């Protein structure tokens, strides 16, 4: 497959490799990833699962990552969360001066990821493989106390960045990980993130992902998780930043009684486009999924959420529940919610609900009769719309941070201060 965009990516790739000396094996691997991408091609809006994403933005993107050690001048990191060991990557490169020492953190080991991630055939994962130079690898040993880690991917320069993260939990291990993508870059920028997760039997992973990148950023994200018997994966995904954001999440419930819960909140305004596709594949008995989505689109923003639940013929007694809700708060805004079930066995329980609408007139009127102005009433109701999902964040300091971040995106910081006090 060829296209002007792919040709340009290949040329940028050649130039980038020439600038970055690397081991022959790495070089070969990167070339192989690029080759895979060129053969496969990038998705287009004609692909059913990409129709709500903003892919046109790639035409103008620059794919070459920053080289050399990142400068940490003028970096404005978010406040730390107590008890979480922080590691910072700036423009895709590890920033030791802003981070804890890599190595052992309780039962976990964090090291820089120079090798390859298990390749999957998704285009943006291949693109990441082809260009990425750094990343984090977290391994948590069997059955120890919960380990708390925070990884910040910070954008300081308007270059492309390829964050990558590998997480492996051994049997009965427990990890809480805050993964933040933040940046103040206001010029166009391409960020392409890859996360690979493997949970052994009985492991428990709570993963809090905050996408708060700059206003002109194009952010793509490929996450793949494999969950073994009795293991549990909770993903909290907060999408507020970027001009165009697309998350592709694949969760494989591979062992009996594996469990996942995915709570997503997307706030888009102005020209923003947020698109999320989550596939949960039930491949064993008694596997469970809970999926909650709340999206608010203002201005002429577009939000897409595509939640596909697959239940294989061997996955009897699987249980899944989807609750997807969209709130249209702008005259030209659009929300597309697609709950999908693909069930190959009879003995399952799958429920799903998807609703999109505007603010409830009766609720608004009720607040007005109490003297609340229409502006504040609308903000309050928007807040109320997402709050049940935000409340599920069980790290209080992080929850407060998320609430403040959401409030500032709703231009309602002041009222919210009162709400939280």
């Amino acid at each position: 497959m060829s296209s002007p965009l792919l040709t340009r990516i290949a040329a940028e790739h050649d130039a980038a490799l020439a600038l970055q000396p690397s081991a022959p094996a790495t070089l070969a691997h990167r070339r192989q990833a690029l080759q895979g991408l060129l053969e496969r091609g990038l998705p287009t809006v004609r692909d059913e699962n990409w129709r709500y994403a903003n892919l046109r933005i790639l035409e103008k993107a620059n794919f070459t990552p920053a080289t050399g050690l990142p400068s940490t001048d003028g970096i404005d990191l978010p406040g730390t969360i107590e008890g979480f060991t922080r590691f910072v990557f700036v423009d895709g490169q590890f920033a030791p001066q802003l981070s804890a020492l890599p190595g052992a953190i309780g039962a976990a080991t964090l090291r820089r990821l120079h090798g390859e991630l298990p390749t999957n055939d998704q285009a943006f994962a291949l693109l990441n493989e082809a260009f990425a130079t750094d990343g984090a690898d977290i391994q948590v040993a069997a059955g120890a106390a919960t380990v708390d880690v925070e990884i910040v991917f910070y954008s300081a320069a308007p270059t492309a960045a390829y964050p990558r993260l590998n997480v492996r939990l051994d049997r009965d291990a427990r990890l809480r990980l805050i993964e933040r993508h933040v940046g103040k870059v206001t010029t166009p920028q391409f960020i392409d993130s890859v996360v690979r997760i493997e949970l052994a039997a009985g492991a428990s992973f709570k993963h809090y992902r905050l996408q708060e990148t700059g206003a002109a950023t194009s952010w793509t994200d490929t996450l793949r998780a494999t969950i073994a018997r009795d293991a549990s994966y909770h993903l909290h995904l907060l999408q507020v930043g970027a001009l165009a954001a697309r998350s592709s999440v694949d969760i494989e419930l591979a062992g009996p009684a594996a469990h996942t819960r995915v709570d997503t909140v997307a706030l888009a305004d102005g020209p923003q486009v947020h698109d999320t596709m989550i596939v949960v594949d039930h491949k064993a008995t008694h596997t469970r999924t809970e999926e909650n989505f709340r999206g608010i689109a203002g201005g002429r923003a577009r939000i897409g959420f595509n939640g596909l639940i697959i239940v294989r013929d061997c996955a009897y007694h699987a249980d899944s529940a989807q609750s997807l809700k969209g709130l249209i708060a702008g005259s030209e805004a659009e929300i597309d919610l697609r709950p999908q079930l693909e069930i190959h066995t009879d003995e399952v329980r799958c429920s799903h609900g998807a609703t999109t609408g505007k603010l409830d007139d009766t609720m608004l009127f009720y607040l007005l009769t109490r003297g609340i102005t229409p502006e504040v009433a609308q903000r309050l109701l928007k807040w109320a719309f997402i709050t049940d999902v935000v409340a599920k964040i069980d790290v209080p300091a992080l929850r407060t941070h998320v609430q403040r971040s959401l409030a500032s995106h709703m231009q309602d910081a002041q009222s919210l201060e009162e709400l939280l006090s």
Partner: protein
Amino acid sequence: MLIVEDLHVSVGATAVLKGLTLTVPTGEVHAIMGPNGSGKSTLSYVLAGRPGYTVTAGTVTYDGQDLLALAPEERARSGVFLGFQYPVEIPGVNNVYLLKAALNAQRKQRGLQEVDAFEFLGLVREKMKLMQMPETFLSRGVNEGFSGGEKKRNEILQMLVLEPRLAILDETDSGLDIDALKVVATGVNSLRDAARSFVLVTHYQRLLDHIVPDKVHVLVGGRILRSGDHTLAHELERRGYDWVSSEAA
């Protein structure tokens, strides 16, 4: 306090109020009674300013000003309170937050400072005690998961905290058992004074045994067909609304 003159109101293409005239002097409690569909709730909503209710003729004067010219939140801030027949559940908006925001909105209108947090909680606790509501209600979402009776008590609690000058209570007695009815009546009576007026909209006379009105009006077919003192409620209970309609005809 409230003067309604020849009020005509339509909802969509349907004329609901057809020349309603009513005067509620300051310090009085007036009951509006009437059968289903007579326009009682429409009157409540029009006074509170609900969108979708079109005033086609007539005037409403509140405290010397044109009430219909004010937005709903302006009416609330100038002291008009509507107790809803079906109080709305707003999950995610905290009860105590709504109370505080509402009270501060009014105080701002009157040029007063925001209420002190400590003082506010003291006030709310005192009123909750009167309404026999547990304090746990404060931290819950507005009316979220409340029973019918709890919602009505919450309406009265809001009224007690806001101390309106004109309270319109739309079928506050519906769905209440006799004990809850007494609690609600106690709440209303505690606020009754020479500076405040109440409009009680109700189907039944039983609420009026506990809150004795100065006047009772019978609303039928969008107009007030008969007015009298509190004994009129008993007469209605005995003879039914048909009696008023047929006498008027």
